[in-house]
């Protein structure tokens, strides 16, 4: 019992060390400052055309948070596993008294925390903007729910990229594949399914529409003059419970399979 407790404590401490070290690396490589700066700068672009209501403004600004989450996941998780092998820093890191699983868990958590921070900054900036433009009383009541949904989607996106980082050999490949998978491949699959009248409920990027949908302004609804032509997209809107479950499933499956591959990987 005592040995088991000591082993768990060792695992927790090593994971904490790994998280710390990864966050220092994200800072020193300037990735975290750059993506954090984007999170603050991007919402400011929406000052160009200010809508009449706070709800629409919030939904418009938040329609870009999905992209930011994917960029952030690709930046922080893209080289989490394969980067150590390609650069041969694994030869420094692994012959030390710590379990590989704790090192890789730490890397995942650090990528998650960095992405959470970026999402938090984005929401903070957007909230301050909304308050400044429409007053504090006009801030959408469901913003907290949207924020939590964005955090869950962040976990799913980080897990997907982390899985590719464990699966592929080169960090540049895993980063690009992860990015394209979330930004293009899944989106195309969802679109094709909708065109044939099937709801793409199991596609995580479709579930991510909940981030704005919970505000009552659907991001599934395309803006602009071609609205009529895109009527097929209006038919579907993700169910909140199912959407959250899908995101959680992607997060868990991506992380678990990524870890399983990572700990077995040999130089």
């Amino acid at each position, binding site marked *: 019992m005592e040995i088991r407790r000591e082993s768990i404590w060792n695992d927790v401490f090593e994971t904490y060390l790994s998280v710390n070290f990864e966050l220092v690396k994200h800072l020193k490589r300037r990735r975290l400052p750059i993506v954090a700066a984007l999170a603050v700068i991007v919402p400011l672009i929406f000052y160009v055309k200010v809508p009449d209501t706070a709800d629409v403004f919030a939904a418009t600004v938040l329609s870009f948070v999905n992209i930011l989450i994917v960029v952030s996941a690709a930046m922080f998780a893209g080289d989490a596993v394969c980067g150590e092998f390609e650069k*041969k820093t694994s*030869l*420094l890191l692994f*012959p030390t008294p710590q*379990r590989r699983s704790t090192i890789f868990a730490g890397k995942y958590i650090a990528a998650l925390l960095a992405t959470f921070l970026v999402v938090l900054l984005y929401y903070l900036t957007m909230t301050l903007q909304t308050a400044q433009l429409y007053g504090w009383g006009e801030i959408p009541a469901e913003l907290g729910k949207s924020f939590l949904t964005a955090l869950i989607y962040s976990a799913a996106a980080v897990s997907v990229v982390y899985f590719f980082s464990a699966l592929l050999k080169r960090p540049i490949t895993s980063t690009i594949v992860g990015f394209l998978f979330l930004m293009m491949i899944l989106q195309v699959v969802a679109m094709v399914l909708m065109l044939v009248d099937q709801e793409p409920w199991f596609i995580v990027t479709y579930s991510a529409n909940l981030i704005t949908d919970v505000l009552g302004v659907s991001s599934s609804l395309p803006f602009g003059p071609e609205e009529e032509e895109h009527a097929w997209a209006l038919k579907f809107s993700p169910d909140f419970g199912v959407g959250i479950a899908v995101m959680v499933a992607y997060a868990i499956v991506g992380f678990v399979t990524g870890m399983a591959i990572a700990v077995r990987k040999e130089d």
Partner: protein
Amino acid sequence: MEYAIRTENLVKKYGKDFTALDGVSLQIKKGEVVGYVGPNGAGKTTTIKILTGLIKPSSGHAYVNGIDVTANPRKALRTIGALIEVPGVYDYLTPREMLTYFGRVYRMSGDEIDRRIKETLELVRLSEWEHKKIGTFSTGMQRRLIIAKAILHRPDNLILDEPVLGLDPQGIRDVRELIRQFRNEGMTVFLSSHLLREVAEVCNTVIFLNKGKVVSSDSMEGIGRSLELGVVDVKFLKSLSQEEIEKLRAIELVRSVDVKDATARLHYDGKPESSVQILRRLVSSNFEVVSYGMEGAGLEDYYVSVMSDEKGAN
């Protein structure tokens, strides 16, 4: 007896066809500096990767200070410092940032980490670079930094795999000097290299590995003795003519002759009386002998003889 490093019938197979290690058993005593030599692909790095927990053996066991590396890697790796192949470095970090992380991994206190960073960086002559980005370092400086990382936690055993690979002569000399210091401090050093001069200069014992098997193992003294037993170097006043070389070959006690300019290496049965006979024959045959002895014979000759024996056996 508890050995610093011990392996029992280590086997490592990749797929069905390739056997990288084929029953390697090693026994390294505490405080020994052991050279692990062999041609490329002999299995040196595979052995070291098993000893440092990087890969698992297909069968067999590896122990460090009596602790099974596969069964209890955390405990075993606490007593090891390692430099394996040419590791990458975190270019964007400073030595202090990198070493602080590894100090924490080895559960050193903050004060101890501070003190050891200063000590180790001073030892590897990088004190002035403590707060500079590692990416600005030369290859030799990076290698010295990795050695500093390997000894940061004062390990009992240091495992070095090709530590001078890719270094310039100054870098090689620096690393050699560091290994000598570790030896003098009583550390067990397991040095894998294919540079025999490095091994000959710093090691007490040498293990020869070929095609995944240990083909020979002896102390440097033992190797020296066996070389003295079978080889003699003769220096002549001037280069030998073809006729003179044939005369050398014709001496009945001489098994084979290697000639280079005015020097000849004679291989014989190793008996002292045979050596005397050969010298007498040289003088009586009017060879102008300047020197006659074993000075030139070294680890390289032993390596060649061991590996060629193995080739013959195969």
